[in-house]
């Protein structure tokens, strides 16, 4: 039976009988005492039970959340969202369990009897309260129980309102929060604010640029790529991607766009008369395209068609295949713009690593450190440039003024004239002290090709290939 003196309810075995305050006042003193004291005991036990179940549930939740945080140190996981969901779910489970485990006044009295060895005085009396026609012996029993109820100390029955689990919960939760903000030794857990901002900004710009493209005027494939770019822009804004993931996605899309642009270019070249010179250029382009398509599983269909055409050695067949695939020369401009956008965004995101003051000594440089240790960056480059040297170059490049959308102005002495164009160095005259003897564009092409060969020959992760490519994009001369 559960009694609430303030509201005047008697609950007995699920039956609710509403009683007025008058009725409560009419109750005998002994009944009032038993009613109030057992209700107080039950309330105290309920606070204890509910808080225990909630805290136990939340401790489990905190444990699971800690596991998630640890996993988040190695992979990109939306930590704050995940931890919040887990803790909220455990809180709800705890509350439901607590509500279901609530004790009635009778159960509270039984527990009290057991703890204080009252020989079932209180519980028997609580049960007698609901009887209408009580015998004389029952009244005596109520009086006897009331005497005991008066003298009992509620704290002796339920010493603490909050159980041990509830008291250690704040400590565990604090530990969880601290763990969330501990930097990952692998640099993949938390995206630094500056990098995140750069990725977001790139996303906004990409979405806007892609939105401006008139997709109706494009071929299906080009329109699809434009939509893809728009979606990627949104993804960069919304998803907590790491810099590595953002760069990877951008590069992948750039690859696809570049391949499509090349196909459009081939289609354009095929439209007119084919001169031997043009044919040579076409073959060169086809070779490059075939290499490019190898890395793009999404364009396997195109790759097969191109390979077939190349094997048959028939330009007519190639022109037919491109037409069948819906490749239009008119897409070139739009694809070029998209490529420029993607290159710029890749650069922006890539530079965020170098610019971020946090990165200077923190997580993000760890990738470069790892490169240095593994020697991956310098392994295939001619002249045996080390990763450290390349990093220095990237750093110095980041401090240069950025031109509109073609990368950085070259400021290397001996290669750039005052007008900003490369000057042929003719017979490679003997340079002055501190000047280079080889034209920059020559050395650039040589190095870039060697780097390309190296990364294509060696099984290295995609991201490192991208990094090498980004590097050469960043330092390419204006003419390119």
């Amino acid at each position, binding site marked *: 039976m559960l009694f609430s003196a303030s509201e005047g309810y008697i609950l007995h075995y699920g039956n609710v009988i509403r009683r007025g305050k008058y009725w409560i006042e009419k109750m005998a003193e002994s009944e009032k005492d038993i009613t109030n004291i057992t209700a107080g005991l039950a309330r105290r036990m309920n606070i204890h039970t509910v808080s225990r179940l909630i805290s136990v549930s939340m401790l489990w939740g905190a444990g699971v959340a800690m596991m998630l945080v640890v996993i988040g140190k190695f992979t990109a996981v939306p930590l704050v969202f995940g931890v919040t969901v887990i803790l909220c779910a455990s809180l709800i489970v705890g509350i439901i369990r607590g509500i279901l485990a609530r004790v009635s006044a009778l159960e509270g009295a*039984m527990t009290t009897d057991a703890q204080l060895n009252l020989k079932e005085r209180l519980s*028997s009396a609580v*049960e007698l309260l609901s009887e209408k026609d009580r015998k004389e012996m029952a009244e005596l*029993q109520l009086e006897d129980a009331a005497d005991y109820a008066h003298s009992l100390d509620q704290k002796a029955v339920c010493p603490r309102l909050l159980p041990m689990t509830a008291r250690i919960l704040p400590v565990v939760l604090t530990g969880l929060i601290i763990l969330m903000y501990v930097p990952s030794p692998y640099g993949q857990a938390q995206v630094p604010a500056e990098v995140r901002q750069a990725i977001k900004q790139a996303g906004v710009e990409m979405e806007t640029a892609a939105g401006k493209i008139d997709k109706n005027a494009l071929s299906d494939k080009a329109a699809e790529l434009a939509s893809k770019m728009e979606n990627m822009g949104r993804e960069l804004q919304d998803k907590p991607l790491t810099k590595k993931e953002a760069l990877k996605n951008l590069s992948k899309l750039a690859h696809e766009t570049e391949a499509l642009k090349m196909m459009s270019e081939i289609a354009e070249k095929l439209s007119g008369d084919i001169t031997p010179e043009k044919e040579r250029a076409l073959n060169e382009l086809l070779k490059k395209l075939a290499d490019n398509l190898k890395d793009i599983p999404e364009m396997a269909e195109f790759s097969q068609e191109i390979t077939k055409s190349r094997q048959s050695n028939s330009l007519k067949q190639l022109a037919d295949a491109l037409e069948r695939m819906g490749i239009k020369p008119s897409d070139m401009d739009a694809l070029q713009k998209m490529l420029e956008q993607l290159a710029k965004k890749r650069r922006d995101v890539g530079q965020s690593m170098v610019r971020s003051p946090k990165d200077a000594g923190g997580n993000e440089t760890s990738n470069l450190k790892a490169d240095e240790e593994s020697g991956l960056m310098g392994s295939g480059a001619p002249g045996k440039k080390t990763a450290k040297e390349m990093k220095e170059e990237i750093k110095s490049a980041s401090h240069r003024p950025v031109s509109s959308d073609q990368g950085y102005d070259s400021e290397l002495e001996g290669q750039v004239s005052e007008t900003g164009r490369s000057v042929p160095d003719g017979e490679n005259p003997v340079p002055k002290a501190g000047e280079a003897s080889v034209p920059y564009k020559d050395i650039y092409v040589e190095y870039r090709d060697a780097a390309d060969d190296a990364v294509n020959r060696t099984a290295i992760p995609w991201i490192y290939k991208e990094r090498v490519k980004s590097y050469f994009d960043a330092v390419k001369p204006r003419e390119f």
Partner: protein
Amino acid sequence: MEMKERVERFRDDFHRVVEEIGKVIVGQRDIIEGVLSCLFANGHVLLEGLPGLGKTLTVSTMSDALELQFRRIQFTPDLMPADIIGTNIVVESESGRKGFQFQKGSIFANVILADEVNRATPKTQSALLEAMQEHTVSVAGVTHVLDEPFFVLATQNPIEMEGTFPLPEAQLDRFLFKLKVGYPAQNELAAILDRTTANETPKADKILDAERVREMRWLIREVTVASHVKDYAVKLVFATRPETELAPEIVKQYVRYGSSPRGAQALILGAKVRTLLDGRYNIAFEDINQVAHHALRHRMILNFEGEAEGIDADEIVDVVLEEVKASHAAKSDRR
């Protein structure tokens, strides 16, 4: 008289009778209290013990302390039912007319001592069935009501089983308690020697009359029982039945039949007496635990395996109590 005074008087009278019997009987306090509990709970008692432990003396002393009509029936193999309940005999009136007249048997008294009850044949033992349950006897189609209070105390010897007839289950079930009389302690034996080897032997005085016993019986039934306490008694009884889920392993292994509902009645009635003696008005689990052995040990019929391994019913009751207590405590802990 107010109820509180009645309860206090009950306690006083009970203890006075115990003290009075204690003048003659040394020790055996549990047995004396058990016997009196059965008397006031309106039940019958079976005393089992080795010869010479004072079973018969205890009963006769109790009858001395109570102003009640006492009869002793010595059960022997040739004892006939008619010797106990009575029979119709042919009587000639003054006018010379002959007719049947009911000659009351020994059972027509308030306190009956059925001494060595297992020495009579089952036919004779069964003569007690109706009297013990209904407090009536039926002879030649006529039912005769016995005087109240009616109380049967039977004794039996657990050894010397040769030539005895174990009480049938129906008969055993009619005894509220089965009390086991043990050996007296060393100091008690010395006191027994003092009291029984001198010329003067102590004698108990009359303390209670039939009317007072009836009042005390009424008072016991006034004690109310809370539902959770009743549940506890019910669980104990169910746990003695091998086919129930509550039965512990030992019951499933060694018991063929568990306690009847009379077992639960015995638990509650015995507990009510203990409640009043403890100065309370409500039954506690502890009261039930205290009478559990007395009330359940003779109501469990062991199977062949149990008999063969010499399992004592008290061991089974111990396990049943532990299991039911544990499940009760676990429920309490969850809260």
